[in-house]
């Protein structure tokens, strides 16, 4: 058992995957000598060489488009997009080629490519460095989308994503990169596309993923001090969603609050709410509520405290649900 930051846990996961399979490549801007702007790929180029850890030209379509070609050749590229807001030049290649080649070829050309994207706000950054575009990927058939929330999951999930024969968009909550947690490198991890009940409770179900999971757990701790036990579920997989644990929970608690940093309209949180009302209609004691970012562009950083779902906004929603 080791205590690692999430950044180091992903680094260790990448290293393990690269040691296991010589076809695994890491590619992106500044991922080599610098080790990535968040140091997630620190030391990998030194140990695996420039043909396995590629400092690429500064072009996101190029990163994804060449990764697609390398995958056709039999490689398993892991692409780093430096920041969430920079993925869009690569979006065409992701949607038009990466997501569709397996279907287009009817399985003859698998696309085992991972696209790592540090996402979300809370770091006081300039524009385009704090976005949560996961719904734009979860909406695309052919892609799989996951978001880790802690170091232990990050260590395992990155390896599982690399081992997957489907393209996986891998969201890393950048404001949690330096949070430490115990990582059990000898454990048997749960399958990649499963959500996880992380704190049992009976009064209300709180569902989140990525950076807000910590906020959800803090809310549950605060509510417990008032005698209200919240059940917290970490979605982990955004496409496909694994909602059976959520349905089970809501059938017991009757109440659901979904938390996410992304804007609420047509979001992952909206999909969770829709599916829960389809499956748990007679169990619901209150409308499903969402606590999310607002439907604005990500604001200047001096506004982000108000934009991001925080402890008070989550507890406010919990109170509204319980008071229904």
């Amino acid at each position, binding site marked *: 058992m080791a205590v690692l930051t999430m950044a180091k846990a992903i680094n260790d996961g990448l290293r393990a995957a690269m040691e296991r399979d010589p076809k695994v490549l890491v590619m992106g801007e500044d991922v080599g000598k610098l080790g990535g702007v968040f140091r997630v790929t620190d030391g990998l180029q030194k140990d695996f060489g420039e043909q396995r850890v590629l400092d690429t030209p500064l072009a996101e379509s190029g990163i994804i488009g*060449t*990764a697609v*070609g390398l995958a056709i050749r039999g490689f398993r590229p892991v692409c780093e997009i430096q920041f969430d807001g920079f993925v869009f030049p690569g979006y065409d290649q992701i949607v038009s080629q990466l997501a569709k080649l397996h279907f287009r070829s009817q399985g003859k050309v698998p696309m085992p490519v991972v696209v790592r994207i540090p996402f979300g706000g809370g770091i006081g950054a300039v524009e385009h460095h704090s976005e949560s575009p996961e719904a734009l990927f979860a909406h695309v058939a052919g892609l799989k989308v996951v978001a880790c929330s802690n170091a232990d999951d990050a260590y395992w999930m990155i390896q599982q994503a690399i081992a997957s024969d489907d393209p996986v968009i891998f969201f890393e909550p950048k404001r949690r990169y330096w949070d430490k947690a115990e990582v059990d490198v000898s454990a048997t991890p749960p399958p990649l596309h499963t959500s996880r009940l992380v704190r049992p409770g009976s009064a209300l179900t709180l569902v989140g993923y990525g950076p807000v999971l910590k906020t959800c757990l803090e809310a549950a701790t605060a509510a417990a001090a008032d005698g209200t036990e919240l059940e917290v579920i970490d979605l982990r997989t955004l496409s496909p969603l694994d909602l059976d644990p959520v349905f089970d929970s809501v059938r017991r608690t009757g109440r659901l609050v979904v938390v996410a940093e992304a804007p609420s309209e047509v979001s992952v949180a909206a999909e969770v709410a829709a599916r829960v009302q389809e499956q748990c209609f007679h169990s619901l004691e209150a409308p499903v509520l969402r606590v999310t970012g607002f439907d604005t562009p990500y604001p200047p950083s001096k506004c982000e405290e108000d934009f991001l779902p925080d402890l008070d906004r989550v507890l406010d929603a919990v109170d509204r649900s319980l008071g229904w």
Partner: protein
Amino acid sequence: MSVPQSWTPVTSADTAVPSHDQVVAGLKATDEGGADLVQLLTPEGERVTDPRFDRYAADIDLDTLKNLYRDMVLVRRFDREGNALQRQGQLGIWVPLLGQEAAQVGSGRALAPQDMAFPSYREHGVAWTRGVDPTDLLGIFRGTDHGTWDPIEKRFHLYTIVIGNQCLNATGYAMGQKFEGKVGDGSDAEATICYFGDGATSQGDVHEGFVWAAVYDAPVVFYCQNNQWAISEPTERQTRVPLYKRAQGYGFPGIRVDGNDVLACLAVTRWALEECRTGNGPVLVEAFTYRMDAHTTSDDPTRYRLADELELWKLKDPIERVRVNLVREHGVEQGFFDGIQAEADELAARFRQFCVDMPPPAPDRMFSKVYAEPSPTLEAQREAFLAYHASFEGA
């Protein structure tokens, strides 16, 4: 009327911005031949020499030339059948290659078995040279699938419809060839060829492909068929300078070949592939040709170009010049040509019959192979749809 002088980007102040006439003159400067246009067979069917590229066509004997002729006639024949099948409602659309047979057959026949090709969506002639049966193309245009050949086995990727995307995919593949040590003097050396058109050269992905291929020394031949028209837009809507000259700015060679000359296309592509296989890639080849038919069967070229232009290009027909050469320089008898025509008609008949016999896809075809590892959500959707579908049985 004086012919406008073409423009070159020099520093002399009064020519900083070219006139439209100067741009067009530059783009078509080699139209009738000229120092920069590689040609081994003139439109009149005369074999001419080229000091640089003759040796890449030195082994082309009469039988090989006959085979190239056969390739082009057969490809044109099933291409025409594709047009007819669309007009008769058997295909939703067809993308004709008429006029580009030499550019495609010449380059395709330059490939070694181990080389990889990335087509756009008009490369039926290249598909032919890779051993893809023409009937494997039909589903794309009939709407039953997206191409049924095995791209890995045939070393011919599936058609890419988003303009320019494949230039990056091809570059990545070529990088992989290099990473695997397949570049060099060995007999197992490999290269990649990437097909795209003049319109695609405006796409960012083509630019990025050039940049990436250059910085990684990727063994990729960028093979641009400049057929003069991107649907309705002429080449001067894409560029000020002839396209082959762009390569210089990226740091690799660019060359313009007569795209209606199958021998020149074969020789130049052989050279370009050899450069790539031996570590001197990438290379840009501009095959200067003409789209003699519409962009697709949905297009109407009479709205944007003059019939005179087509008539001029008919005089440079890629097949006719080979036929003339076979007759005049090799004394090939009419019986040979009749035999090829009969074979072409048989191919077209088989192509047609296959098309009309194609069954519609199964109702749950759309759910097939979306993922390598099934998605439970999608599986549930498929089951619900099939149950719904079954509820109509017997109704």
